[in-house]
């Protein structure tokens, strides 16, 4: 791709991007959110047409007007959010769009062909399984299989590890290396430095729509890549003085929840938060995390168990009661929960604070005071926005998250629940968020950090618990935790021998 420019009204998404990918290599495309990675790939895949520049495949200039042409030219795309039909079988999904000329679908032949293809690439997938029943890692293989079935020789993977467990990520690496060995070319979009180091041969960094540089992975360092990506020096490791845990402030015993079909969704024998400590909760998504957090924040009443905060029984209190008891909560879904996107920033600062006398008096909103507070929070927490009246929607993810943490810390809580606080943020914002969590801990508050990013958990936690199928299946001191062991516990396979990670 040469000097590719793509403009959107008001934004130049790609501003002279150069990307040269060699046949038979794994090429990482590294950049922060909004850097223009996906736009570039959409140009390559024929979803958009470039305003300037040209795209060459095997030396020949190409102009795709739709994805079908791109597929015909040997391109394949594995989307971050899978484009699969859950109720179809693996084989049906794979042949979708390539059913063949006959009006009658020969399922058996299709299934056989898919099985052969899967076997030839070591993609261990049952062609007759229903996709909806498969774990995420398997579904991704189905996507890869579909691209291969369409004859793709150049595979684009958009943030492929976002939803995988550490073991599934390792399996993916093996698959990618195998594809490369067969002469396939892979473009791997990511903003995680570790992945670049682990799997790619070369890496191209883009920042704000411009190519910053291409490096041979083995000849560069994570530090250099991070600086290329952000454009300034960054602290990759969190500077974290040793913890000084104090009294237990939140104590949950035998917390249990049941789901809509009377299945057990949460069964926690015991969980404690202590002042001056970050408790990391790791696990694969959908293993009781949301239930646990809803219980701890007062959004859900557990069906059994006891929960005390500072010795007071809090079950029966609602979210407002939990806030009053000193719980602040950074939700995992900042658009759906943490913010009202159409509200200006100052009205978002009021969310959860409507019962506090500084914010409202006799039912009237003290908008002047709240605006002033918001402005001062914005400067303290470096929330970049024109004013307190700017709608939250127009802020970047990082600035939205800063506003949330500013609001939640302004309450001066005793307990901070931080749920995936850095999801989707760029390196700079992640750095800020991590420092805020450590500062909060050092201020003598109890912090619960729930994340699906094992590195984040291991970097920040003083104590780690592993959640699997609603239970705590392991507890470690932060310094003694072992990546491979955590990974196995997360996958619900504690009995198997540890395998070397990384």
């Amino acid at each position, binding site marked *: 791709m040469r000097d590719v420019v793509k403009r*959107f009204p*008001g*934004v130049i*998404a790609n501003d002279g991007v150069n990307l040269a990918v060699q046949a038979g290599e794994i090429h990482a495309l590294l950049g922060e*959110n*909004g*850097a223009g990675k*996906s*736009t570039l*790939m*959409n140009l390559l895949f024929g*979803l958009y047409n470039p305003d300037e520049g040209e795209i060459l495949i095997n030396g020949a200039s190409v102009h795709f007007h*739709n*994805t*079908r042409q791109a597929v015909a030219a040997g391109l394949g*795309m594995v*989307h971050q*959010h899978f*484009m699969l039909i859950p109720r179809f079988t693996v084989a049906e999904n794979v042949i*979708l*769009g390539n059913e063949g000329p006959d009006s009658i679908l020969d399922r058996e032949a299709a299934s056989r062909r898919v099985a052969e293809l899967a076997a030839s690439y070591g993609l261990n997938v049952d062609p007759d399984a229903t996709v909806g029943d498969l774990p995420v890692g398997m579904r991704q293989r189905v996507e890869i299989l579909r691209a291969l079935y369409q004859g793709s020789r150049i595979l684009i993977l958009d943030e492929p590890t976002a939803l995988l467990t550490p073991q599934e990520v390792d399996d993916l690496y093996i698959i990618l290396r195998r594809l490369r060995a067969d002469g396939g070319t892979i473009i791997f979009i990511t903003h995680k430095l570790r992945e670049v180091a682990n799997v790619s041969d070369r890496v191209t960094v883009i920042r704000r729509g411009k190519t910053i540089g291409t490096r041979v992975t083995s000849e560069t360092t994570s530090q250099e890549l991070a600086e290329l990506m952000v454009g300034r020096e960054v602290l990759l490791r969190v500077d974290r003085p040793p913890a000084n845990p104090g009294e237990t402030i939140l104590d949950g015993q035998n917390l249990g929840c049941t789901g809509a079909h009377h299945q057990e969704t949460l069964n926690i024998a015991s969980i404690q938060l202590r002042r001056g400590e970050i408790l990391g909760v790791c696990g694969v998504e959908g293993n009781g995390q949301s239930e646990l957090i809803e219980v701890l924040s*007062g*959004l859900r009443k557990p069906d059994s168990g006891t929960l005390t905060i500072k010795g007071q029984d809090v079950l029966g209190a*609602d*979210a*407002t009661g939990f*806030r009053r008891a000193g719980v602040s909560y950074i*939700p995992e*879904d900042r*658009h759906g*929960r*943490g*913010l*009202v*996107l159409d*509200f200006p920033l100052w009205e978002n600062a*009021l*969310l*959860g604070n*409507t019962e506090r006398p500084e914010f*409202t008096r006799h*039912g*009237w*909103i003290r908008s002047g005071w709240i605006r002033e507070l918001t402005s001062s929070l914005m400067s303290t927490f470096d929330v*970049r926005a*024109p004013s307190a*009246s*700017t*709608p939250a929607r*127009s*802020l*970047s*993810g*990082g*600035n*939205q998250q800063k506003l949330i943490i500013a609001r939640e810390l302004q309450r001066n809580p005793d307990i901070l629940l931080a749920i995936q606080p850095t999801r*989707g*943020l*760029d390196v*700079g914002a992640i750095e800020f968020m991590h420092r805020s969590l450590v500062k909060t801990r050092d201020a003598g508050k109890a912090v619960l950090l729930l994340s699906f990013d094992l590195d984040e958990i291991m970097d920040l936690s003083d104590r780690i618990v592993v959640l699997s199928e609603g239970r705590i299946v392991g507890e470690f001191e932060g310094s003694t935790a072992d990546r491979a062991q955590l990974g196995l516990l997360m996958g619900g396979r504690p009995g198997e021998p540890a395998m070397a990670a990384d």
Partner: protein
Amino acid sequence: MTIRPGSAIVNAVGSVVAVLVALLIGAVVIVISGQDPWEAYRSLAEGALGSRRGRAETLVYAAPLILGGVAFAVAARAGMFNIGVEGQLVIGGFAAALVGATDWGLPSAIHIPLAVFAAAIAGGVWGFIPGVLKAATGAHEVITTIMLNYLAFRLIAYSIQKRSDWLPVDDSVQGTERVLDTARLPIILDATRLHAGVVIAFVAAFAIWFVLFHTTFGYKVRTVGLSEGAARYGGIRWGLTIAIAMALAGALAGLAGAGESLGLHGRHSAVPPGLGFTAIAVGLVGRNHPIGVIFSGLLFGFLSAGALTMQAEADVSRDIVLVLQGLVILAVAAFEAMNRLPWFRALGTPKTPPGGDRASDTGMSPEIESRPAPPAI
């Protein structure tokens, strides 16, 4: 103030532009039907604004539309699509007329407020029911409010036909008995039909604006309407809030009915006036903003008040007014649809703050970093 899509100013400008576009298209329609659009609009404006009586008529037509429009707007702010304005309005008007037509020997100072209050309560109950049903069972308000409309029509028809034994109704006129003078909303401008209900409409619209944007309750309503998740997170009781908001909406529609029966007609007729449905359009054109609703209500009132003069002087059928109303709704809807287009939104998007990464992570700017459409299949 920043100019950006979705802001009050852009919405207001958009609505004005939409109205102008509608008038333009309306002119084409008038030309096609062989008349002079200039003359038609001139006589329309003259009828509605050219005389004291005309101006009063504009306000009289506007009053129930403003109240009904605000009733729709309050519910919409809570995330509820209130199709039940008509039912809430007629049940309110009926209740007001019943109280107003009953002779307890009360003085006006008590009888009028009592009748108005009855309308608000009756309309409020009619709004509260779908609100509670939604909160408790998830029953969709579009279904329940439509059903309650029919329930209101039938209940009133039944009462008038069968219950004259203990209600002040008169089957021969298909309505209630006449409201007593002690309960009539007074005429506030001599030799016109301008009654005190018009004042109620304006006061109520301003009051609701204040409640929505300056009180904790209004904040909760708007939060619930924009994001159920954020409301739950913020400790706002979703069910309670929508139930109260719907009751408030019903009460406002009930007040519209009270103005009609206590002010304008002096009785409540069993024939549904359809005002509640026009009021939905008024609410939409007013962008569910009480102040916007005042203006759109005045516009619709203006069109209705001038229609007869237009027919008489320009020989343009008064039904062209209905066409104009429809065009206004269409034009506003078109503007709203345009507001969702990425390129249109981008026109007013503030510049990226320094150092901030634009393009949030769930594709708020869909043109960047959004996930591509599925491969063509």
